[in-house]
Structure formats: C-alpha cells, structure tokens
C-alpha cells in the first residue's frame, strides 16, 4: 500500500491495559480516531487481574470516567469500551501485533497482524455451549495458572470484547465440537491471520510490564514448595472475581493460612535488576491488610528493605497497616526459604531487631514480584525504531518524559518505568495531551456526542417523536437467543400472555435481537405500529441496554422510553432446571417492566457550547507546561501567577540527579510562554472568585500593579487548571534558623551551586531526612531522598574526603532513581536509619554543633560534629491553598493538597467537571512528573475545549423547590457534595433559601432523593412512582 502524503487524524495506541484505554478515551473525546491494539484477545491488562487497589481497597474501575454508564466495567475503565456502547472514534484490534512502522511524526504507516481468535465476536452470544463441550484443559493465564480453563474460553465472565476465543491446539482440528454446537455459527477453526495497514499521525505505547520470574530465585522455593506463591497469584486468590471468590487457601492442603509472610524486592533492587519496582511495598501491604480483614487471628509479616510509601495517602495507609492491623514489618532480605516436608510449612531464618537469629514457621510465603519490561519489548523497539534504557524499559528524555527517541511516538505507564495505576493514568492522559498538540489541526475532526447514554455521532438520526399526551402503546420484543433463552423459558407462552396485558399494542419474538436483523425488526415494528413505549426482553442491561436504547432512538423515540428485561442472566440461566418457574418469573418480570414503562418519560440533556479558553492558576513548571500544551493545540490560555516572576520552585532547582539542566528548561518555558500568541500571562494576580460549570466558568482576577493598586477583571473560560505548587517547609527544628550551619535541602543546593569553594572545605555533612512539622499528618514528600542523593554525590565530588552521613527512616529512591542511591553508597556516603524512638538530637557545644544519632547496628548513640547539617524538610501545599480550594469549591486531602475525583482512576480531575489539578498542588513530585501531570490535565482540558458542544444532565436529581424547606438533608447526604441551598432561591411557602442541584455536577446516584424528608427531589428515570411500579 502506498503511503499517503498527508497527515492523518488517527492515533495508534499499543496496549489495551488501563493506560492504553485512558489514552484512547481522551483522544477519542478530543475528536481524533483511535486504533487500540492489544496483543491478548481482551482488553484490561494487569489491572483486570487485581481485586483491589491500594490504598483505597476499592476495585472501582467503574469510576474511571464520570459517565453515567453501566456497571462494573471491569476490565475496562470506561463504559466507552463496552461492546454496544463503544466510542465511535475507537476501533479495538485485539489479538493483534504490530509488525511494521514506516513514515514519520504526523504520518506513519503501521502494519498490524491479527492472529485468529476463531470466534466471530459479532456473532458470539456468550451462551457458553462451546466451553461446556470442549475436552481440552489448559492452565489459565488470567488466573495465574491456579486453575485450568478450556481451549475455547473467555478470560473472565466479563471480557472486552465480550466473546469467546480459541487457544488452538492440534487436537482442536479433529475435535471441532465447539464449531458444531455453536448456535450462531460464530466458531470457525479455519480462520486465518490477517494483516492490515493503518495510517496514523502518532503512536502511543502503553504495553505495561511483565512480572519477574520467581523461578530465577530458586533458593526461595517457588515451584518446589507448594505453599510458596507469587504476588499475582495471591491477588487472584484474594480477588472476589478470582477462583475462590476471595478466600485465600494454602495450595498444599486447602487449609486457611494462619501465618503468611511476604518477601519483598523479588526481582528488584538486586545485582541483576538494580531498579526499584515502585509498587511492591504498597501491594504487599494491601495484600496483608486484606488477609487481616478476612482471616481472624492471621499473622502477617512483611520482610522489607525500605518501606516506600511515597504517594498520596500511602503513608497513612502504611501506618494503619502497622497500628490498626498489626502487620509486622521486618527489615531483612531473606536469602532462603526452607520447607518442612511433612507439613509443607515454610521455615524462615532471619535476624530480629536485636540482631539475634530467629527461626519462624509460616503457612504460606508470598514472593512480591517486581516489574520487568514487557515481553517482546526488544523486538518491538526494533520495529518501532525507538531506544530502550539499560534496564530494557523505554528510554525517555528527562524533561520530555512521555516522548520516545523517535518523534511522533509516545510512551506511558509501566513501559516507561515501573509505576502504579494513578501514575499510569496520568502518563496516559499526558501522552494523549502530547499527541493532541502534535495533531492540533485535526482536533475535533471526528465529532462524537454524549447527548444520549450511548455514544453516537450527532448526525443521521431521524427527529425524535413527541409522545406526550399519547396513551401508552407498548411494544414487547422477546429475544429467543436460541437456545439460551427459549431453551428454558417458554417464550411462546410468555408472548401469548403479554398480548393479553393492558396497553400492549404489539408483541414480537425476535431470533437474536442484537443482530442486525433483530435490530431492524424492532425499529420497523416501532414505526409501523406507532409504538410509544418499548420493552425488550433479552439479556443484561449492562451489556445491551445502550444497543437497544440506540435502536429505540433510531426509530424516533427517546431512548428512555425503552425498558429492558434481563430474561437471560437473571432468569433463564439461573433457573435452568426449573423451566416452569423461569417462565412464571419471566411473566412477573415483564409485568413489572410494563408497569414501569407506562410511566416512562423522555430524558434530555442540556447542550453547552464550551468557551474555548482555559484558565491556568500557577506559573510554575506544571502551570507553564499545561498552558503551553493547551495553547499549542490551538486554544487561548490565561495564566495567572501571584508572584512577579514566572517559574515557581523551578527557579531554585539548579541541577537534577540525572544530570540535566533545569534552568535551561525554565528559560525555555518562560520564553515560549511569554512569546505565545494565545497565552496571556498575568503576574501578581490571584483568583478571587470562580463560578459556573464545565464549559462556562467565570472568574474574577485581581492584579496588584507595581504601584500597589489593585485591578479586577472578569474572564469567561471553559476549563480551569490548578497548578499552584508546593513549598519547602522552613520550621524551627534542629536549630534551623538559630545556627547558620543548619540549612534546608534547597538552601544547600544554592550553596553547592553558588559557593562550591565553601562546600569543598567541609569535613563532615549530615543530612536528616523526613523533617516535618510536629503534630501534622506525616507523609512522604517523595523528592527529598533523591535530592539528598544528588547533593551528597555533589559534595563527594567536590571533596571526596568529606564524610557524608544520611540519617533516614526509609530510603525512597523509587524506580530508576535507585541508581543514584547505589551511586551515593559507592562514593562512600554513610546511611544510618533512625525511627521515632531514636530521633536524632542537635545542640551547640561551644563553637561546635553536636548531633547525636542512634546507630542501630552498634545499638548505641553516636555523636557527630558536622560543619553542615542539611534538613530534608517536608514539602507542603503552597500558601493559600485552602483559600483557593474554597473559591473553587473543591476539596483538600488530609495532607492539605487538592483532592482529586478518585485517587487512582481520576488523579487529575475533580468531581466538579472541567477543573483539573496538576503538579505539586496534587502532591509533591519531581519535575518530570509535574510535566507529565501538566500534559495530562492539558489533554483532559482539550477533551472539553475541542467539542463544538457537549451535554450535561441526563439521569440527574431535580429539586422541586416549591416543596423544599432548605433543611440541608440533601447537602449532607450527597456523597459528592453537589447540592447547595441557595439563599437566592425560593422554597416552600415563599421562604428564602432552597436546594439546587447542578445538573452538570450531579452523579445520578439518587441518595439525596431517598433522604429528602419532603420528597422534593426526584431522580429522572427513577422517579418514585417509576421505581414503586416495579416493586410488585
């Protein structure tokens, strides 16, 4: 195929895990076309295997987006991936490999090869008859080989695409039972692989990671001792969707384990794999906590090197694990696991705190596996022409953290470096933001609309018929779904019964309602019989409601005039041995559906035309990057900075551990920003008020002029980006402020850069890590350990004879930063651990500073007389964060940083749509992390700005203010803090003050409606009479 010589509006996303899906949704929402390629037959990646996420212990992948979509969308992050709800701009290519890439940024030609799945997903109705007859058992990859599956199988009961696949073995050729039993002829064992060329403008790599191989560590017994399992196996055992629905049992005897040990850093921080895998400390903590919740009196012990709880709320979680859950953390790296061959108990020998050797028995040992580059990364890198780093992960530039070495190819998630879900999501949105900048001319080219609950292009629909005032004419469509439904339920009898029911104008049996012919039949009947209400008796709302809502709308009816009845999953399939009962229940279900559909009312959304302008608050590295990304993509930006100068903390960072020059980055950003035609920079300016909703905000900005006067101006904008940053604490501890020899980490950096001669003269420098205000919530400030390493190494470079001592609690040099820790040790930096019981103390003794620290190996106090003490002070939210939170009406986390909509799945959004957070305002982070985060919010902002219009409301709560007494019950009940009692509104009897629920913000749960004592609130599509009609 010839390469077309024009750029394209398509993007290729490689990898269908949580990162790839996030990137795909954002790109699709910005009006670009996306090909999502996944090498496995289903989307979901590693995250689909996890039962719980730390530290929230939730599985709410359903909160990946805020759509009022259906159900647990696992293994998806958005209803936009459900088969019948698919975003029109996303094309999913599963079981597909990338084999060739040609061209350049803006114009790539990519060749992909799809391996056959031997099942046509369009025809597969998920009846499972094939699996039932399949004679071949194979270990289940998804269940980490804990159980077996058949050769024709689905990863899990819910998979995307929702269809079976064949893992073909030679025996299948002769057997072919699945082929002959399939009722829809979906199985074709002779299917051939096929190749396809795609023309794309950019590529995002989101291939995830591979697990370390536990068998490389033979001394730990994996594969030899049945009760040594690895962490992903434990995840499956503990997952409620796992083979035991969450009950962890010992593999050797099926007994509930009473003593479980976790061994950390398996395949991390060792000679062969010198980097830190970043996630294991937290997931082991999570696994132990879940064990504690489920198994009474279980003893959980985690053998760690350092506990690395370095993200938002992680430290509180780690403390809870120790104090509330009594999980024991032992600092030791074990060299061997022994087994008692009689009982299969495991024996661990390790030194305790006092240094004495102990021997303990455990029922189960879990190996916390680290991350490796994804399988086939080397080959793929060759195909793509990109560089890998020495560890085999994708090489990126420090200050362009999401760009690979080849222009136009971006990377996100764990293929870049080991990281957790929230950071993968940030990266993914950031890579999408980068692509939007590259393909700016094409943004919005593929319009989509969320006017209806299913996603659909706005054009080509017949006008909607107004059915108000008509008496109900209900059409009942019963799907046979042969043989899954009509094999159990007597559908003829049900149809005959339905004909006798009041208001039923038409009853029809369809073979497969979801097939094109079935959809046609329904559309035709709705129009021919002039129906104004529709009931579809078929399968799950979760999978098929969007489809039948679409069919209903295509026939000219509002989609909410259709009611589905789940006769398959909720009736036929669970009452297989009770056909009479199933038939009776089917009628019951139809009867209540009829009662409900009679009361059905159309539901509409409100169109908003977004104001194509962004407000960015904060002019540090995050704010500037976000502003530039949005402006480069073609939209106006107003950036406010309260200081007279741009740059924020970046102004005081002179070098980074990896060696790049942050001051060059600063100059570059400021120059580009100031000269940008679409960016207005307002320094000495603060936001004093902020109102409105997504697409249509108004803010008042107050600027203080050089002469001290203040000027206020109002702006109108579609999105707001919060990038107000953080600050180094400067508390009067350890004689800071009283003795000039005690400095903060940032001050030390200034000295190293500006007075290297003075640094070279020092004989002894002591660093104290984790210095935070007493009584405040403790948390890991994330950047200090690495900063200490970089400064310690600099001191050693200036004067190798200088003794450098680091007093620390846990060294948190996560990911590839572990290399600088290794380097510091290699250069002779001494590390001494302290804890709460042995805090270092400092005093002046004559002209000298005396610092006393506890040496845990000598078990006694050691005095130091340093020339300089550097304190790694906590990073706090910047001054005025609380005030800004009040102005924006967004919450703060317990640490005082801005609190996002969801810690894991929506780390850069607020519940209030259209407001985003990035950089240190979210949590302390490194420059490159701030950049990725800023690009992510820019990408998220662009999904709003690129739309010609978008829709708010839908299934939301509405207040009848004439009944409202303003009692505040709804305000207190709402899990999202959406209802407000507004003084300007008038309630019952003309009283001042009534509740108002913003349709742009309401999440549609209905909690307020159930609590409202005056019944003044109703949830659309779930009004009280509509629900009660279904009750009996």
């Amino acid at each position, binding site marked *: 195929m010839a390469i077309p010589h024009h750029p394209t509006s398509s993007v290729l996303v490689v990898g269908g895990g949580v990162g790839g899906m996030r990137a795909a949704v954002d790109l699709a929402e910005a009006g670009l076309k996306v090909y999502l390629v996944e090498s496995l037959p289903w989307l979901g990646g590693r995250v689909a295997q996890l039962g719980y996420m730390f530290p929230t212990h939730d599985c709410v992948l359903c909160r990946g987006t805020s759509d009022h979509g259906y159900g647990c969308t696992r293994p998806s992050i958005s209803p936009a991936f459900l088969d019948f709800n698919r975003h029109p701009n996303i094309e999913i290519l599963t079981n597909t490999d990338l084999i060739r890439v040609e061209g350049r940024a803006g114009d790539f030609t990519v060749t992909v090869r799809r391996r056959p799945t031997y099942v046509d997903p369009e025809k597969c109705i998920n009846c*499972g008859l094939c699996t039932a007859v399949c004679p071949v058992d194979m270990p289940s990859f998804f269940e980490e080989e804990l159980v077996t599956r058949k050769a024709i199988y689905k990863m899990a009961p819910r998979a995307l695409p929702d269809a079976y696949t064949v893992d073909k073995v030679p025996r299948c050729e002769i057997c072919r039972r699945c082929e002959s039993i399939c009722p829809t002829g979906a199985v074709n064992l002779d299917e051939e692989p096929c190749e396809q060329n795609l023309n794309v403008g950019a590529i995002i790599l989101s291939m995830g990671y591979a697990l370390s191989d536990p068998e490389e560590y033979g001394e730990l017994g994996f594969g030899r001792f049945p009760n040594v399992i690895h962490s992903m196996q434990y995840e499956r055992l503990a997952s409620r969707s796992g083979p035991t629905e969450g009950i962890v049992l010992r593999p050797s005897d099926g007994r509930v384990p009473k003593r479980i040990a976790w061994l950390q850093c398996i395949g991390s921080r060792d000679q062969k794999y010198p980097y830190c895998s970043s996630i294991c400390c937290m997931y082991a903590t999570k696994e132990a906590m879940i064990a504690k919740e489920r198994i009474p009196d279980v003893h959980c012990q985690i053998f760690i090197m350092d506990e690395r709880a370095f993200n938002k709320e992680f430290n509180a979680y780690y403390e809870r694990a120790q104090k509330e859950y009594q999980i024991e953390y032992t600092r030791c790296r074990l060299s061997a696991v022994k087994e008692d061959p009689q009982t299969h108990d495991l024996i661990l020998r390790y030194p305790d705190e006092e240094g004495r050797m102990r021997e303990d028995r455990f029922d189960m040992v879990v190996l916390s596996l680290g991350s490796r580059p994804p399988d086939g990364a080397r080959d793929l890198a060759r195909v793509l022409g990109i560089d890998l780093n020495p560890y085999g992960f994708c090489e990126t530039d420090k200050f362009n953290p999401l760009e690979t070495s080849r222009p136009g190819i971006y990377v996100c998630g764990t293929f870049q470096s080991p990281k957790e879900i929230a950071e993968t999501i940030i990266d993914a949105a950031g890579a999408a933001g980068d692509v939007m900048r590259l393909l700016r001319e094409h943004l919005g080219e593929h319009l989509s609309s969320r006017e209806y609950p299913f996603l659909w292009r706005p054009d080509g629909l017949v006008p909607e018929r107004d059915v108000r005032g008509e008496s109900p004419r209900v059409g009942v469509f019963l799907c046979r779904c042969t043989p899954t439904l009509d094999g159990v339920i007597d559908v003829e009898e049900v149809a005959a019964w339905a004909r006798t029911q009041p208001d039923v104008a038409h009853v029809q049996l369809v073979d497969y309602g979801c097939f094109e012919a079935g959809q046609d039949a329904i559309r035709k009947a709705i129009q021919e019989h002039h129906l104004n209400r529709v009931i579809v008796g078929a399968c799950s709302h979760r999978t098929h409601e969007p489809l039948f809502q679409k069919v209903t709308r295509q026939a000219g009816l509002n989609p909410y005039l259709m009611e589905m009845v789940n006769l398959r999953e909720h009736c036929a399939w669970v009452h297989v041995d009770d056909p009479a009962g199933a038939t009776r229940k089917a009628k019951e279900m139809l009867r209540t559906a009829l009662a409900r559909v009679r009361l059905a009312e159309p539901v509409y959304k409100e169109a908003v035309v977004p104001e194509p302008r962004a407000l960015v608050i904060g002019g540090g590295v995050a704010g500037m990057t976000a502003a530039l990304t949005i402006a480069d993509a073609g939209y106006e930006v107003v950036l406010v900075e309260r200081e007279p100068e741009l740059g924020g903390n970046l102004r005081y960072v002179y070098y980074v551990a990896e060696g790049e020059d942050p001051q060059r980055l600063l100059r570059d950003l400021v120059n580009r920003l100031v000269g940008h035609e679409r960016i207005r920079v307002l320094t000495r300016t603060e936001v004093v008020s902020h109102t409105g909703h997504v697409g249509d905000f108004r803010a008042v900005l107050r600027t203080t002029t050089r002469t001290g006067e203040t000027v206020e101006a109002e702006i109108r904008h579609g999105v707001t980006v919060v990038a107000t940053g953080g600050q180094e604490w400067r508390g009067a501890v350890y004689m800071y402020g009283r003795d000039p020899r005690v400095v903060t980490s940032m001050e030390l950096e200034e000295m190293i850069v500006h007075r290297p001669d003075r640094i070279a003269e020092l004989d002894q420098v002591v660093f104290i890590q984790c210095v935070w205000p007493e009584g405040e919530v403790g948390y890991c400030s994330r950047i200090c350990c690495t900063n200490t390493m970089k400064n310690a190494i600099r001191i050693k470079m200036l004067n190798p004879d200088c003794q450098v001592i680091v007093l620390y609690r846990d060294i948190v040099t996560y990911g590839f930063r572990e290399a600088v820790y290794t380097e510091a040790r290699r250069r002779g930096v001494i590390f001494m651990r302290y804890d709460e019981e042995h805090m270092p103390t400092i005093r002046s003794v004559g002209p000298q500073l005396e610092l006393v620290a506890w040496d845990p190996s000598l078990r006694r106090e050691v005095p130091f007389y340093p020339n300089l003490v550097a304190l790694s002070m906590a990073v706090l939210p910047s001054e005025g964060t609380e005030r800004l939170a009040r102005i924006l009406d967004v919450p703060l986390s317990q640490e005082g940083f801005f609190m996002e909509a969801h810690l894991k799945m929506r780390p850069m959004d607020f519940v209030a749509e259209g407001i985003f957070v990035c950089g240190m305002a979210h949590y302390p982070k490194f420059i490159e992390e701030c950049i990725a985060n800023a690009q992510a919010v820019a990408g998220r902002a662009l999904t709003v700005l690129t739309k010609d219009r978008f829709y708010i409301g839908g299934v939301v709560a509405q207040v009848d203010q004439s009944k409202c007494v303003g009692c505040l019950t709804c305000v207190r009940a709402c899990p999202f803090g959406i209802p407000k009692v507004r003084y300007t509104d008038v309630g019952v009897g003309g009283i001042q003050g009534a509740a108002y629920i913003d349709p742009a913000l309401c999440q549609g749960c209905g909690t307020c409606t159930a609590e409202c004592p005056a019944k003044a609130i109703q949830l659309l599509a779930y009004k009280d009479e509509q629900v009660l009609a279904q009750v*009996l």
Partner: protein
Amino acid sequence: MSIKDNGHEEFVPEIVAFTCIYCGYMAADTAGALRLKYPSNVRLVRLPCTGKADVRYILEAFEKGADGVYIVACPLGNCHHVHGNERALARVKYAKSLLDKIGIGGDRLEMVFVSGGMGATFADAARKMTERVKELGPSPLKK
C-alpha cells in the same frame, strides 16, 4: 425444611431484591454467566445505587405482598457512589426496627454486599433469603 401452607401446596415466598446497577447487578449477571442456580421467586429491582433505596420502597414492597426484601450493594468502601451503600445500610437498620415494631419482623429484611465477580455469593444470598423467609412463613400482611 419446606413449610406447607395449611397442608396444601408448598409456600413459595415472594422476594424482592433491590440492586444497584454496579456491583449488585453485575454479581447477578456473573451468577447467570456461571449458571449458578437460585430460586426463581427472587425478583430484582434495579436502582442506580443502593443509596437510592428509600425506606418507603422497602415498606411498600411489604405492603404490596412481598414476604421478604433484601438489598444487594457494592462492598462497603467500594460503592461506585462512595457512600451510597452506607446510607442504604443505615436505612435498612432503621426499616428493620420499624418492621419489628409493627409485627412484620425485621428478619424479613436483609442487606448483602457483593462485588461484581461474586456470582456464587449472590446466588447463595438468594437461596439463604428464600430459606429464611420460608421458615418465617408468609408475611403477616397477607393473612
């Protein structure tokens, strides 16, 4: 096990289960996909969240002839709507006390927490509730 209604036919209790469209509905789907059997007298009513389960819905279900009612929610701490299920739990406790007071019996009302993958637990809850209500006999409101 089975209680005969006046020695005639076996008493088949009518049970209404309110589910959220997230984990609750999903668990019911999983039970279906795994072909796990439970009695056919349990009928589901879909709500956007169990936080929507009004005490009134529960009481009206009994008034209209249900012998038992239960609510199927996401696991505590795992609600799609953050606290919706906790609100529902508080209401269930309150409704139980009301049912005890008026002589219907709080035991006829229950709340279960399942995750979307827990098909077996969902089916088990349906069976257990049916057994329990069978033991309790028909709702006093039916007499």
